[in-house]
């Protein structure tokens, strides 16, 4: 884990750079000539309320002085947990969480990235393991500051019949990468990997996913949507690998972006690498502007232009929130999206 080692050794030369193919649009080495000192201890009692407090039984905080968390859900257990990764002050922070969900157990994991206005550099490594028939819904809200740099890397592995659903919503950062890598066994396991980015000013967000289908009969469904305005830049890299013999794989990937200004940019690299014969795979990728005809229609009905634009954009991104299975979680996510779009 090069980012983690670079932070721990305070050695920026170990950071990934644009010469690394998978990082060419999210160059950290070129951005960070020096790394700030290690984060000092954060006073947990002083943290503000979390976005999902009302929906969870327990909260784990990862921050300076609290760099590791272990979450274990016993077989057939059921839990709703918050995981808050908190960046405070101009500091380097490297945290790690392991999440093990036992056979038949169910977990709703509400993960938030909370940064302040300083130039922090944070790395989070998550290891998520789902045993037979386990079900996890992971919801991530990334609320970084303008000057923050964040890399989150989740490694997910599933056993037979496990269900893993994920929705990542981000407003970006100075530079930010939210990466999810899934080892998919096939075997009636199913994966949903959704995301949405809402970027303004000079913010950057990189949503990268890798799914490796390693066995017969697995499903992956992926929908990422986003809007960029001002001079913001979004990156979507979605790779689905169907290994030899992983027949009856059903994999669908969609990435759709709206560009709301001339200087905003979206780079997308959807990749389906298929080494099996009997598979159903599809991907769609669209990048466009708001539909001006629809905008006129809305204005003809009385909506002022800004309101019409906001409604179209919110509806566009809202499709991602609609796919969240846990209904109670949709509301705070929608509210978060609306707040970001209004500002």
């Amino acid at each position, binding site marked *: 884990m090069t980012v983690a080692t670079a932070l721990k050794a305070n050695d920026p030369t170990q950071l990934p750079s644009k010469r690394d193919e998978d990082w060419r649009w999210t160059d950290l080495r070129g951005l960070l000539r020096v790394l700030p000192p290690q984060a000092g201890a954060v006073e947990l009692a002083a943290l503000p309320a979390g976005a999902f407090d009302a929906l969870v039984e327990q909260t784990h905080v990862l921050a300076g002085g609290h760099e590791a968390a272990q979450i274990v859900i016993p077989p057939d257990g059921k839990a709703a947990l918050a995981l808050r990764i908190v960046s405070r002050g101009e500091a380097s922070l490297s945290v790690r969480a392991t999440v093990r969900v036992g056979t038949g157990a169910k977990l709703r994991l509400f993960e938030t990235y909370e940064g302040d206005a300083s130039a922090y550099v944070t790395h989070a490594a998550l290891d998520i393991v789902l045993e037979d028939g386990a079900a996890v819904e992971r919801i991530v809200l990334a609320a970084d500051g303008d000057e923050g740099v964040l890399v989150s890397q989740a490694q997910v592995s599933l056993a037979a019949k496990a269900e893993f659903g994920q929705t990542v919503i981000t407003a970006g950062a100075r530079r930010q990468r939210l990466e999810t890598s899934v080892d998919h066994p096939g075997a009636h396991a199913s994966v949903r990997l959704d995301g949405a980015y809402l970027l303004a000013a000079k913010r950057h967000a990189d949503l990268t996913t890798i799914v490796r289908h390693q066995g017969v009969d697995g499903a992956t469904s992926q929908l990422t949507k986003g809007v960029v305005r001002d001079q913001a830049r979004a990156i979507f890299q979605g790779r689905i690998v169907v290994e030899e013999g992983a027949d009856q794989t059903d994999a669908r990937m969609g990435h759709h972006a709206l560009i709301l200004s001339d200087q905003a940019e979206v780079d997308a690299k959807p990749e389906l690498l298929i080494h099996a014969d009997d598979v159903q795979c599809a991907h769609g990728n669209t990048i466009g502007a708001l539909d001006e005809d629809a905008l006129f229609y809305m204005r003809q009905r009385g909506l002022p232009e800004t309101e019409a634009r906001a409604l179209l954009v919110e509806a566009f991104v*809202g499709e991602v929130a609609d796919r969240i299975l846990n209904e109670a979680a949709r509301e705070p996510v929608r509210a978060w999206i609306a707040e970001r779009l209004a500002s």
Partner: protein
Amino acid sequence: MLSIQNLRAEVDGKEILKGLTLDVPAGEVHAIMGPNGAGKSTLSYVLTGRDGYEVTGGGATLDGEDLLALEPNERAAKGVFLSFQYPLEIPGVPALTFIRTALNAQRKARGEAEITAPEFLKLARATAASLKIDFGMLKRSLNVGFSGGEKKRMEIFQMAMLQPRFLILDETDSGLDIDALKIVSEGVNALRSPERAMLVITHYQRLLDYIKPDRVHVLSAGRIVASGGPELALELEREGYDKYARAA
């Protein structure tokens, strides 16, 4: 009510309206007929302020106020409503949400109080019932996947909900089946009042059997070339536009 004076407008540098003059007093329904490409939809877009339709001469006023100086949403708040020849799809926005947002935006612009959710729902249910629109349809994204006729019905539903003062119906009859034509016409007639006026663009006399016009105008090559009573529509139905095409 609406007064159009010697209006000239171009699209992509091409002049489409070439000095069009027309008066529609309050309380009246005027029909506009005319060959394909004559400029009927262009007129409706110019009156509602669509981008790309550049006014190069003349003017239009609503109750004496310069209509063309207003933003499209301001014109809507003044009560101008266009039933589109080709209604647009608004993905992800349920029809009811859209109409409530539009209604409240108009009310806000007029300095009126917002409609409450229960009031709105009650009104929507009653209106849907009178137009024989399945309430379930109103929960779907506006016009997405709707048939041509369903889209036209949704236009009239929106019109009935928004209660505009000046209505422009651009070929609202095309795509409607016989029963729907009747229902839609009843919806339109319900809005006839001494304070309102309507411009009904159509190719077919049949619509005018249901929505009886006070005046009928022929729009050809960007101008009103003939005007008359309801009998003019019957004459056009029999004889076509040949003589007006030459006149223009």
